[in-house]
């Protein structure tokens, strides 16, 4: 059966990583590139086979689980090293292996000049393997292993240029900030085990509506902890600060890890635990607020940055905010939809920016670009397509996914969420076109000694493929699904996201009654939301208009009147604040980093150097002093020793008789 191939999918990149890591220097660059790309493509093809196998499953069976071996067990607590194939996993698998393969091919061209080429690909493959483990694991602990694995590879790859201090610092920052979230995630897993006695996804999700009270404390704590974990990995408020710094890594890393896959792991996790989140309205509100707030805030920062990759990084933070906004209003399909389309267009944008950087020899400052359109036509056109997609222009993929998020944030949420989403959309269109105009249009501000050139085919082909995907990706989710059932993704994910609120509420009521408490009235929750196709159409037109306004604004500011931005911002105290990223880094530095350093210094000087070292060295000193006293006994005179023998013998006699 084709599904038996499941466990091979994460295995191929792992093998590739091992070969490249241990023998990479010997086998040469060509072989390294071949192995790295080959393992990813093999993995992709296997995913296709598994998909075919999944389609052949008998009616009614939505999950296929394959247990490779029992990982460990203690009493009732048994953790399997098992994989699970369900619609959600398949979507994520295709994103990771598909986009991953394309980026691997691109990286072959981009990293060609690097000396430690093999090291890069060893980590890159290892990352893919860990990411696949994350999305395919059938229990929380296995997911956590993947979760940590991708974080670790992210650290390695951000600090890839380890001679550069800024790169090392960025890697450390990413790692430490991620740890905060990871810790919360681990706590959540422990709590889940405590409550359910198992950490298997299927079992937990099945038992959740019967064991947890709707809106109760337990489920709220669990989901809050899970969400804190997600904010760390997915760079949301308050743990987003690491992602912009992570741009110190090579560009393919930014594309694969910090745009398409790893940073969306948090969204995947929330959707995977959708049953739990559905049970806690409070957490849902927090998720939506954090998501919406992050979307707007990151977008405002993105408007003021000049480093091409940093703009894209803030854009990523902002777009993931959208996904969480969608999760927060219960529109999980929209979140996954946006995740997929975002993987396409954002990977394309990052790779495009990499192509630009490659073409002008490592310059990343947009103030030193401009007029690159004629030098790099392929990069330019693919970049424009993806930018239109992210800005939400019909009929590109971003339009459909963003629109679905906005529609649900209004219908299932409230006007505040929708307002956040729309203002983020406006800002997105503005800063993305600012990026395009500053980079490709206008006067060339490139250093005269540099001759811009188009990138080789191995780099432009992936761009073209990704731009193509960014164009047609919207077909996955044709809107108006409530009437025409054309939304492929929605019906595909239905088995995973299925949640029977009515029976869950009944269980909760029952449990509350047993505890002698009175259940609050939940009847209003069960009223069906009305979906009107004209509302959806109206909202679409509105967000399209918003995007056009944003693009027009960017056109006015950066093409028509390049003097306007300076005039407009002169003497604005607010701008200074935005440009400095709201001083959040400084705030964290003062609030957490410095106290930690000071505290550590205190512990080092007082506790470690004085107390611990004092005890250890003191013991040694006392023993040394005693030994010096005792050593005089060993005089070297034989007659002395004889005397000792006699004295000893006599005293022995005296003692005995």
């Amino acid at each position: 059966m084709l599904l038996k191939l499941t466990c091979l999918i994460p295995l191929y990149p792992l093998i590739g990583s091992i070969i490249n890591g241990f023998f990479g220097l010997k086998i040469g660059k060509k072989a390294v590139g071949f192995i790295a790309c080959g393992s990813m493509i093999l993995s992709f093809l296997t995913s296709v086979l598994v998909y075919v196998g999944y389609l052949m499953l008998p009616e009614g069976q939505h999950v296929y689980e394959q247990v490779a071996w029992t990982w460990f067990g203690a009493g009732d607590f048994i953790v399997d090293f098992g994989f699970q194939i369900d619609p959600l996993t398949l979507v994520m698998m295709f994103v990771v292996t598909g986009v991953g393969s394309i980026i691997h091919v691109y990286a072959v061209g981009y990293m060609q000049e690097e000396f430690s080429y093999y090291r890069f690909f060893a980590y890159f493959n290892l990352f893919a393997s860990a990411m696949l483990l994350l999305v395919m694991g059938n229990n929380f602990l296995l997911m956590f292993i993947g979760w940590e694995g991708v974080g670790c590879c992210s650290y390695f790859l951000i600090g890839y240029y380890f001679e550069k201090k800024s790169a090392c610092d960025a890697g450390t920052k990413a790692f430490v900030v991620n740890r905060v979230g990871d810790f919360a995630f681990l706590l959540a897993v422990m709590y889940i085990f405590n409550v359910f006695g198992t950490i298997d996804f299927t079992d937990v999700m099945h038992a959740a509506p019967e064991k947890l009270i709707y809106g109760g404390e337990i489920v709220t704590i669990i989901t809050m902890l899970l969400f804190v974990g997600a904010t760390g990995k997915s760079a949301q408020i308050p743990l987003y600060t690491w992602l912009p710094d992570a741009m110190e890594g090579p560009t393919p890393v930014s594309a694969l890890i910090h745009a398409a896959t790893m940073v969306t792991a948090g969204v995947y996790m929330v959707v995977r635990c959708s049953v739990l989140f559905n049970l806690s309205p409070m957490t849902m509100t927090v998720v939506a607020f954090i998501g919406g707030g992050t979307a707007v805030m990151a977008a405002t920062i993105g408007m003021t940055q000049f480093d091409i990759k940093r703009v894209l990084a803030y854009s990523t933070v902002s777009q993931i905010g959208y996904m969480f906004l969608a999760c927060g209003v219960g529109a999980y399909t929209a979140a996954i939809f946006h995740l997929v389309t975002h993987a396409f267009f954002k990977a394309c944008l990052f790779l495009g920016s990499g192509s630009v950087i490659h073409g002008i020899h490592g310059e990343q400052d947009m103030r030193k670009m401009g007029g690159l359109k004629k030098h790099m036509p392929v990069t330019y056109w693919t970049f424009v397509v993806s930018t239109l997609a992210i800005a939400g222009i019909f009929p590109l993929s971003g339009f459909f996914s963003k629109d679905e998020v906005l529609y649900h944030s209004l219908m299932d949420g409230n006007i505040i969420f929708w307002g956040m989403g729309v203002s983020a959309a406006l800002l997105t269109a503005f800063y993305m076109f600012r990026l395009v105009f500053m980079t490709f249009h206008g006067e060339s501000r490139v250093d005269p000694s540099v001759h811009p050139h188009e990138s080789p085919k191995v780099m432009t082909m992936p761009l073209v493929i990704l731009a193509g995907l960014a164009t047609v990706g919207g077909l996955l989710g044709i809107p108006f699904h409530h009437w025409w059932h054309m939304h492929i993704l929605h019906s595909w994910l239905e088995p995973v996201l299925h949640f029977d609120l009515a029976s869950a509420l009944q269980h909760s009521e029952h449990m509350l009654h047993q505890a002698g408490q009175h259940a609050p009235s939940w009847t209003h929750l069960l009223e069906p939301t009305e979906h009107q196709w004209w509302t959806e159409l109206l909202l679409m037109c509105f967000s399209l208009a918003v995007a056009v306004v944003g693009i027009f604004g960017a056109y006015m500011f950066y093409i028509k009147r390049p003097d306007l931005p300076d005039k407009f911002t002169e003497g604005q105290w607010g701008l200074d604040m935005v440009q400095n990223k709201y001083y959040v880094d400084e705030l964290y530095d003062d609030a957490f980093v410095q106290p930690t350093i000071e505290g550590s210094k205190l512990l080092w000087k007082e506790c470690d150097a004085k107390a611990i070292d004092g005890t250890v060295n003191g013991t040694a000193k006392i023993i040394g002093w005693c030994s010096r006293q005792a050593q005089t006994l060993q005089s070297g005179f034989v007659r002395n020793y004889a005397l000792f023998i006699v004295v000893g013998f006599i005293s022995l006699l005296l003692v005995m008789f």
Partner: protein
Amino acid sequence: MLEETVPLSHYLMLSATLFVIGVAGVLIRRNVIVVFMSIEIMLNAVNISLISFDHYMNLSNGQIFSFMVMCVAAAEVSVGLAIIIAMHRNKPTVNLDDFNLLKW
């Protein structure tokens, strides 16, 4: 006859006296040869007590044991003298106090 005239305690006294002389010699004298001789005196003092016990208790174990001691003493003499000669080659003296290097 003999057992009536000379009691066991006399033999033991002789043995003890010889032994103490030997001990005193080892502790006081500095000449290596003399120290060595003192050790032989101690061994023989023990031999005397062994033989006398043996005699008074009508056993033969003590005699066998004293032969044993003699054999050991002979072996010891050969090894000991060899050591003394080796020492003397290193340092032209027989004064024990000059050999005090082997310490901390």
